[in-house]
Protein backbone atom coordinates (compact mmCIF):
# COMPACT_ATOMS: atom_id res chain seq x y z
CA UNK A 1 0.00 0.00 0.00
CA UNK A 2 2.77 2.44 0.91
CA UNK A 3 4.67 1.62 -2.26
CA UNK A 4 1.58 2.31 -4.36
CA UNK A 5 1.04 5.54 -2.43
CA UNK A 6 4.62 6.55 -3.26
CA UNK A 7 3.97 5.91 -6.96
CA UNK A 8 0.72 7.87 -6.90
CA UNK A 9 2.28 10.82 -5.10
CA UNK A 10 5.22 10.83 -7.50
CA UNK A 11 2.80 10.89 -10.44
CA UNK A 12 0.58 13.49 -8.84
CA UNK A 13 3.34 15.92 -7.99
CA UNK A 14 5.29 15.54 -11.22
CA UNK A 15 4.25 16.50 -14.71
CA UNK A 16 1.78 14.23 -16.46
CA UNK A 17 3.21 11.77 -18.98
CA UNK A 18 0.58 12.52 -21.62
CA UNK A 19 1.61 13.84 -24.97
CA UNK A 20 -1.30 16.14 -25.83
CA UNK A 21 -1.46 14.59 -29.25
CA UNK A 22 -3.19 16.74 -31.85
CA UNK A 23 -1.73 19.90 -30.31
CA UNK A 24 1.67 18.51 -29.46
CA UNK A 25 2.61 15.94 -32.08
CA UNK A 26 5.87 14.08 -31.83
CA UNK A 27 8.12 14.00 -34.86
CA UNK A 28 7.85 10.40 -36.15
CA UNK A 29 10.98 8.26 -36.02
CA UNK A 30 13.02 8.55 -39.19
CA UNK A 31 12.83 4.85 -40.06
CA UNK A 32 9.11 4.43 -39.46
CA UNK A 33 7.20 2.05 -41.68
CA UNK A 34 4.06 4.10 -41.75
CA UNK A 35 3.24 4.72 -45.39
CA UNK A 36 4.69 4.16 -48.86
CA UNK A 37 5.77 6.72 -51.38
CA UNK A 38 6.12 5.91 -55.05
CA UNK A 39 8.23 7.76 -57.56
CA UNK A 40 6.66 7.26 -60.99
CA UNK A 41 9.68 8.79 -62.72
CA UNK A 42 11.90 5.78 -62.37
CA UNK A 43 9.28 3.01 -62.68
CA UNK A 44 9.73 0.53 -65.54
CA UNK A 45 6.36 -1.15 -64.99
CA UNK A 46 8.08 -4.48 -64.32
CA UNK A 47 5.28 -5.62 -61.95
CA UNK A 48 7.74 -7.06 -59.40
CA UNK A 49 6.14 -5.10 -56.55
CA UNK A 50 2.70 -6.33 -57.53
CA UNK A 51 3.89 -9.96 -57.58
CA UNK A 52 5.68 -9.74 -54.24
CA UNK A 53 2.88 -7.98 -52.36
CA UNK A 54 1.37 -10.44 -49.88
CA UNK A 55 -2.03 -8.74 -49.91
CA UNK A 56 -2.37 -7.92 -53.59
CA UNK A 57 -2.64 -4.24 -52.83
CA UNK A 58 -0.54 -3.08 -55.79
CA UNK A 59 -1.82 -3.22 -59.34
CA UNK A 60 0.30 -2.32 -62.33
CA UNK A 61 -1.30 -1.73 -65.71
CA UNK A 62 1.25 -1.82 -68.53
CA UNK A 63 -1.09 -0.62 -71.27
CA UNK A 64 -2.46 2.45 -69.51
CA UNK A 65 0.88 3.01 -67.76
CA UNK A 66 -0.74 3.28 -64.33
CA UNK A 67 0.47 2.12 -60.95
CA UNK A 68 -2.05 1.95 -58.16
CA UNK A 69 -1.98 0.92 -54.54
CA UNK A 70 -4.93 0.22 -52.30
CA UNK A 71 -3.96 1.88 -49.01
CA UNK A 72 -6.74 -0.01 -47.22
CA UNK A 73 -5.26 -3.37 -48.24
CA UNK A 74 -1.62 -2.49 -47.70
CA UNK A 75 -0.05 -3.93 -44.55
CA UNK A 76 3.08 -1.76 -44.79
CA UNK A 77 5.41 -4.76 -44.66
CA UNK A 78 7.94 -3.36 -47.10
CA UNK A 79 8.35 -6.41 -49.31
CA UNK A 80 7.71 -4.28 -52.41
CA UNK A 81 10.39 -1.79 -51.39
CA UNK A 82 12.99 -4.55 -51.12
CA UNK A 83 11.84 -6.11 -54.36
CA UNK A 84 11.81 -3.02 -56.58
CA UNK A 85 14.80 -3.29 -58.92
CA UNK A 86 14.89 0.48 -59.50
CA UNK A 87 14.23 1.55 -55.89
CA UNK A 88 11.22 3.64 -56.85
CA UNK A 89 9.45 2.85 -53.58
CA UNK A 90 10.33 4.11 -50.14
CA UNK A 91 8.84 4.39 -46.69
CA UNK A 92 7.27 7.57 -45.39
CA UNK A 93 7.39 8.16 -41.66
CA UNK A 94 3.95 9.74 -41.43
CA UNK A 95 0.95 7.38 -41.39
CA UNK A 96 -1.88 7.71 -43.92
CA UNK A 97 -4.84 9.80 -42.79
CA UNK A 98 -8.14 8.28 -41.70
CA UNK A 99 -10.74 8.33 -44.47
CA UNK A 100 -14.50 8.51 -44.48
CA UNK A 101 -15.16 6.59 -47.69
CA UNK A 102 -13.85 3.41 -49.09
CA UNK A 103 -13.44 4.96 -52.53
CA UNK A 104 -10.71 7.31 -51.33
CA UNK A 105 -8.45 4.41 -50.53
CA UNK A 106 -6.63 3.95 -53.79
CA UNK A 107 -3.50 5.89 -54.70
CA UNK A 108 -3.02 6.27 -58.46
CA UNK A 109 0.14 7.22 -60.29
CA UNK A 110 0.68 7.50 -64.00
CA UNK A 111 4.09 6.45 -65.14
CA UNK A 112 5.42 8.86 -67.75
CA UNK A 113 6.63 7.63 -71.13
CA UNK A 114 10.40 7.64 -71.37
CA UNK A 115 12.50 8.19 -74.44
CA UNK A 116 14.13 5.00 -75.72
CA UNK A 117 17.84 5.23 -75.19
Amino acid at each position, binding site marked *: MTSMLKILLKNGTGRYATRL*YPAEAREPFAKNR*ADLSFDPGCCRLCKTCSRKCPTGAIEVDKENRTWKRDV*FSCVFCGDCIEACPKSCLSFVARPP*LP*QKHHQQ*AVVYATVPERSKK
Partner: protein
Amino acid sequence: MGMMKHLMVRSRRRSLWMMHFCLGGCNGCSIEIMAALTPMYDLERFGILNTGNPKHTDVLLVGGSVNHRNRRTLKNLIDQIPAPRLIVAVGTCALTGGIFNEAYNIIGGANRVVDVDVYVPGCPPKPEAVIDGILSGLDKFEQ
Protein backbone atom coordinates in the same frame (compact mmCIF):
# COMPACT_ATOMS: atom_id res chain seq x y z
CA MET B 1 -33.88 26.15 -28.22
CA GLY B 2 -30.87 26.93 -30.36
CA MET B 3 -28.69 27.03 -27.31
CA MET B 4 -29.92 23.66 -26.07
CA LYS B 5 -29.11 22.17 -29.43
CA HIS B 6 -25.70 23.78 -29.48
CA LEU B 7 -25.03 22.40 -26.01
CA MET B 8 -26.16 18.94 -27.10
CA VAL B 9 -23.76 18.92 -30.04
CA ARG B 10 -20.99 20.11 -27.78
CA SER B 11 -21.74 17.42 -25.21
CA ARG B 12 -21.87 14.71 -27.83
CA ARG B 13 -18.54 15.80 -29.21
CA ARG B 14 -16.95 16.00 -25.77
CA SER B 15 -18.32 12.81 -24.30
CA LEU B 16 -17.66 9.67 -26.29
CA TRP B 17 -17.95 6.42 -24.49
CA MET B 18 -16.23 3.79 -26.51
CA MET B 19 -16.22 0.06 -26.84
CA HIS B 20 -13.82 -1.93 -28.92
CA PHE B 21 -14.66 -5.21 -30.49
CA CYS B 22 -11.88 -7.26 -31.97
CA LEU B 23 -13.00 -9.58 -34.75
CA GLY B 24 -10.82 -12.03 -36.59
CA GLY B 25 -7.49 -10.29 -36.68
CA CYS B 26 -4.11 -10.54 -35.08
CA ASN B 27 -5.21 -8.59 -32.01
CA GLY B 28 -2.56 -5.95 -32.69
CA CYS B 29 -5.19 -3.27 -33.21
CA SER B 30 -6.89 -3.89 -29.88
CA ILE B 31 -3.50 -3.68 -28.16
CA GLU B 32 -2.99 -0.29 -29.75
CA ILE B 33 -6.47 0.82 -28.72
CA MET B 34 -5.67 -0.21 -25.16
CA ALA B 35 -2.38 1.69 -25.43
CA ALA B 36 -4.29 4.78 -26.56
CA LEU B 37 -6.20 4.74 -23.26
CA THR B 38 -3.07 4.84 -21.16
CA PRO B 39 -1.03 7.76 -19.81
CA MET B 40 1.08 8.48 -22.89
CA TYR B 41 -1.94 9.10 -25.14
CA ASP B 42 -4.84 9.30 -22.67
CA LEU B 43 -8.06 9.16 -24.65
CA GLU B 44 -9.93 10.30 -21.55
CA ARG B 45 -8.93 13.92 -22.15
CA PHE B 46 -11.39 13.86 -25.07
CA GLY B 47 -14.01 12.41 -22.75
CA ILE B 48 -13.49 8.93 -24.20
CA LEU B 49 -14.13 6.22 -21.64
CA ASN B 50 -13.80 2.52 -22.21
CA THR B 51 -17.21 1.17 -21.19
CA GLY B 52 -17.17 -2.28 -22.72
CA ASN B 53 -20.96 -2.30 -22.80
CA PRO B 54 -22.87 -1.73 -26.06
CA LYS B 55 -25.77 -0.02 -24.31
CA HIS B 56 -23.52 2.77 -23.05
CA THR B 57 -21.52 3.12 -26.21
CA ASP B 58 -21.20 6.08 -28.56
CA VAL B 59 -18.13 5.00 -30.48
CA LEU B 60 -17.56 1.43 -31.57
CA LEU B 61 -14.01 0.63 -32.61
CA VAL B 62 -13.94 -2.45 -34.81
CA GLY B 63 -10.65 -4.23 -35.36
CA GLY B 64 -10.11 -7.31 -37.45
CA SER B 65 -11.81 -8.93 -40.37
CA VAL B 66 -15.32 -10.34 -40.39
CA ASN B 67 -15.80 -14.09 -40.58
CA HIS B 68 -18.93 -16.18 -40.79
CA ARG B 69 -19.24 -16.55 -37.06
CA ASN B 70 -18.51 -13.12 -35.70
CA ARG B 71 -20.66 -11.43 -38.32
CA ARG B 72 -23.76 -12.16 -36.29
CA THR B 73 -22.09 -11.03 -33.08
CA LEU B 74 -21.09 -7.73 -34.66
CA LYS B 75 -24.59 -7.10 -35.99
CA ASN B 76 -26.04 -7.99 -32.62
CA LEU B 77 -23.74 -5.57 -30.82
CA ILE B 78 -24.50 -2.73 -33.19
CA ASP B 79 -28.23 -3.21 -32.76
CA GLN B 80 -27.77 -2.64 -29.04
CA ILE B 81 -25.96 0.67 -29.44
CA PRO B 82 -28.46 3.53 -29.16
CA ALA B 83 -28.22 6.28 -31.78
CA PRO B 84 -26.36 8.52 -32.45
CA ARG B 85 -23.36 6.28 -32.81
CA LEU B 86 -20.03 6.35 -34.57
CA ILE B 87 -18.42 3.25 -36.00
CA VAL B 88 -14.70 3.35 -36.62
CA ALA B 89 -12.90 0.55 -38.43
CA VAL B 90 -9.36 0.32 -37.11
CA GLY B 91 -6.60 -1.41 -39.02
CA THR B 92 -6.19 -3.02 -42.39
CA CYS B 93 -8.13 -6.17 -41.49
CA ALA B 94 -11.23 -4.18 -40.56
CA LEU B 95 -10.95 -2.13 -43.75
CA THR B 96 -10.67 -4.85 -46.37
CA GLY B 97 -9.69 -8.08 -44.70
CA GLY B 98 -6.07 -7.21 -45.38
CA ILE B 99 -3.64 -10.05 -45.60
CA PHE B 100 -6.33 -12.58 -44.67
CA ASN B 101 -8.69 -11.49 -47.42
CA GLU B 102 -8.25 -14.71 -49.38
CA ALA B 103 -8.64 -17.03 -46.40
CA TYR B 104 -11.62 -19.35 -46.61
CA ASN B 105 -13.36 -18.17 -43.48
CA ILE B 106 -13.09 -14.44 -44.12
CA ILE B 107 -15.91 -12.37 -45.59
CA GLY B 108 -13.94 -9.14 -45.74
CA GLY B 109 -13.80 -5.85 -43.93
CA ALA B 110 -16.28 -4.55 -41.39
CA ASN B 111 -18.04 -2.50 -44.08
CA ARG B 112 -19.48 -5.73 -45.45
CA VAL B 113 -21.69 -5.99 -42.39
CA VAL B 114 -22.16 -2.49 -40.97
CA ASP B 115 -21.99 1.12 -42.15
CA VAL B 116 -18.55 2.25 -41.15
CA ASP B 117 -18.10 5.98 -40.61
CA VAL B 118 -14.33 6.30 -40.43
CA TYR B 119 -11.59 4.03 -41.73
CA VAL B 120 -8.22 4.15 -39.99
CA PRO B 121 -5.52 2.52 -42.14
CA GLY B 122 -2.41 0.96 -40.66
CA CYS B 123 -1.24 -2.48 -39.69
CA PRO B 124 -1.73 -1.85 -36.85
CA PRO B 125 -2.44 1.89 -36.70
CA LYS B 126 -0.47 3.75 -34.06
CA PRO B 127 -2.41 5.15 -31.10
CA GLU B 128 -2.06 8.62 -32.62
CA ALA B 129 -3.85 7.37 -35.72
CA VAL B 130 -6.64 5.92 -33.56
CA ILE B 131 -7.07 9.34 -31.92
CA ASP B 132 -7.09 11.00 -35.35
CA GLY B 133 -9.66 8.53 -36.57
CA ILE B 134 -12.08 9.12 -33.71
CA LEU B 135 -11.68 12.89 -33.85
CA SER B 136 -12.23 13.04 -37.60
CA GLY B 137 -15.55 11.23 -37.19
CA LEU B 138 -16.98 13.77 -34.77
CA ASP B 139 -18.76 15.72 -37.53
CA LYS B 140 -21.34 12.97 -37.50
CA PHE B 141 -22.70 14.32 -34.23
CA GLU B 142 -23.32 17.77 -35.71
CA GLN B 143 -26.63 16.79 -37.30
